């Protein structure tokens, strides 16, 4: 396969098709609508299911239905639509169904705006619905990574019978860059042993999230938590840059990590011992790697396109062993690398623990 110029939303849609997407159900909302439009053309042509639902509430429940049949089902939306889907997301989690949801974040709260933003980190990673659960959340930073993680999302959803959310923002959804699509997967036609298909020749099956007895529901919840613990053990993913000798580590995900990377490169060019830590799984958060880096790193700077959400996970992982600073832009305002460089300098001054960085800044000040 050759590299081609691809738009984020369409690349994810095509990657899902090639990963064996059986059914897509969606509702228009900017900045994800191209995903729906692309699949409206492609899915029927491939003889696969596509429905434009009457609401996000219905779309996620159609996903629930198709997932009950053991099929690869997906929907996509943005913050206001994800809010409406939360009921269904919770039922999918409770019934242990595999499903993939693409969330192309925009500015909030309320109707907010349609600019790229990372304001829904809490909404997605903390539970994504009522009840005691967390979905698996993947956060690509390039269109190539979005393609790769789309395939992984379906595999993980199926392996763990889990809700997997692919979390991007409007930048990644709308931008174009060169990327390579994978070949079509050969899908197995056998139904999973838990799926409903009609009870001919076997006892009838029931898929539900209802456990009226508290003891039974506790057991069910313990099972879900055990699964999350296994996932946390196996699936923590991150990418790093200059981490080996970094005194200050910038932590950022998604498109904010691309801006942060530019800033880190610029600071490095000036001789500062700065590194970049980019979580790829937001849930489970890559705490093990951060814990390993903490004795070496003297300070952290979290950079997000929100008022400070992932910073809480970084603080939990760092656990007070190093100062954790935050820089963010809100409401869909794009941050520039220069701002992040300034935030890096500020964090170095404030924390007074970055030897070469602080020295270098002093020298610069003296000139």
């Amino acid at each position: 396969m050759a590299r081609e110029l691809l738009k984020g939303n369409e690349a994810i849609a095509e990657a899902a098709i090639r990963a064996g997407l059986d059914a897509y159900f969606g509702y228009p909302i900017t900045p994800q609508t191209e995903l729906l439009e692309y699949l409206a053309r492609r899915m029927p042509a491939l003889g696969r299911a596509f429905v434009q639902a009457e609401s996000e509430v219905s779309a996620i429940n159609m996903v629930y239905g198709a997932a009950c049949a053991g099929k690869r089902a997906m929907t996509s939306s943005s913050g206001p639509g994800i809010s409406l889907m939360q009921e269904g997301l919770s039922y999918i989690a409770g019934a242990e169904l595999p499903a993939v949801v693409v969330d192309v974040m925009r500015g909030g709260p309320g109707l907010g705006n349609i600019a790229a933003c990372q304001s829904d980190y809490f909404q997605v990673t903390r539970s994504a619905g009522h009840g005691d659960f967390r979905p698996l959340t993947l956060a690509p930073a390039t269109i190539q990574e979005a393609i790769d993680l789309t395939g992984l999302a379906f595999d993980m959803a199926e392996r763990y019978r889990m809700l997997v959310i692919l979390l991007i923002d409007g930048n990644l959804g709308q931008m174009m860059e060169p990327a390579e699509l994978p070949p079509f997967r050969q899908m197995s036609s056998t139904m999973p042993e838990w799926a409903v298909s009609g009870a001919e020749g076997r006892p009838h099956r029931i898929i539900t999230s209802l456990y009226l007895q508290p003891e039974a529901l506790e057991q069910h919840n313990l099972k879900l938590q055990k699964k999350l613990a296994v996932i946390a053990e196996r699936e923590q993913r991150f990418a790093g840059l200059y981490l080996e000798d970094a005194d200050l580590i910038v932590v950022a995900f998604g498109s904010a990590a691309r801006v942060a990377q530019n800033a880190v490169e610029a600071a490095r060019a000036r001789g500062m011992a700065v590194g970049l830590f980019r979580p790829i799984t937001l849930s489970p958060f890559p705490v093990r790697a951060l814990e390993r880096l903490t004795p070496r790193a003297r300070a952290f700077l979290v950079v997000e396109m929100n008022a400070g959400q992932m910073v809480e996970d970084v603080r939990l992982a760092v656990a007070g062993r190093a100062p954790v600073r935050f820089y963010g832009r809100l409401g869909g305002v794009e941050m520039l690398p220069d701002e992040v460089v300034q935030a890096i300098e500020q964090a170095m001054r404030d924390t007074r623990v970055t030897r070469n960085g602080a020295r270098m800044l002093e020298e610069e000040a003296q000139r």
Partner: protein
Amino acid sequence: MMAEQPVYERPVGLTTAYTHYCPGCTHGIAHRLTAEVLEELGILGRTIGVASVGCSVFAYNYIACDFVGAAHGRAPAVATGLKRVLPDRIIFTYQGDGDLASIGLGEVLHAAARGEQITVIFINNAIYGMTGGQMAPTSPAGMVTTSSPLGRDPQQMGYPVRVCELIAQMDGAAYVARRSLHNPAEIRRAKKALRAAFECQIAGRGFALVELLSTCPTNWGMTPVDALQWVEERMIPVFPLGEFKNVS
């Protein structure tokens, strides 16, 4: 000696579980009719039911086919997802009036508008049963419930929703009928309607809905016999019985 000839057996479509329904509730009759129709049409083994939220939430424990439980009001959307990926299976929902006519009105109307090849069994007993007797979208004017303690006042609380009349004007709806479970003659007609609704799906003619006027003696505060009388006197005038649509 002639061998014993049982004339009244448990349909294979019903499990042996005792139901949790109150004495005099007609859910049991609706379950049995559904099970009999699935068995008689020979489709029990390729049918998937979608249970809803309300008293019938445990329908999956009583009707012996594959079942999934849906969120409140969302059963037609869940059924859509199932039918679109399993077009050769028979998919039906079983929903009450709070579920279908209040919180799930959007889902059922749009499933009908799309002409989804599913069968909807709609139990209308004019009240929220499971939560203890609140006003339903189908409560007739004047009906006393725990949330309309002085009786449903249409000026304040609106008018009952007539679901069959709404659904019948959707182009995607192929079979729409309202029947009642308050006497044996009507029960026989109800079974015919259920059969027609499943046949509609088997033939791929479109969306099918059967509304069944039902009783809730516990929350109506009546004896089972009085409740049957109440269906005839208070419900049927508001919800006239009949076949509203039958596209052949």
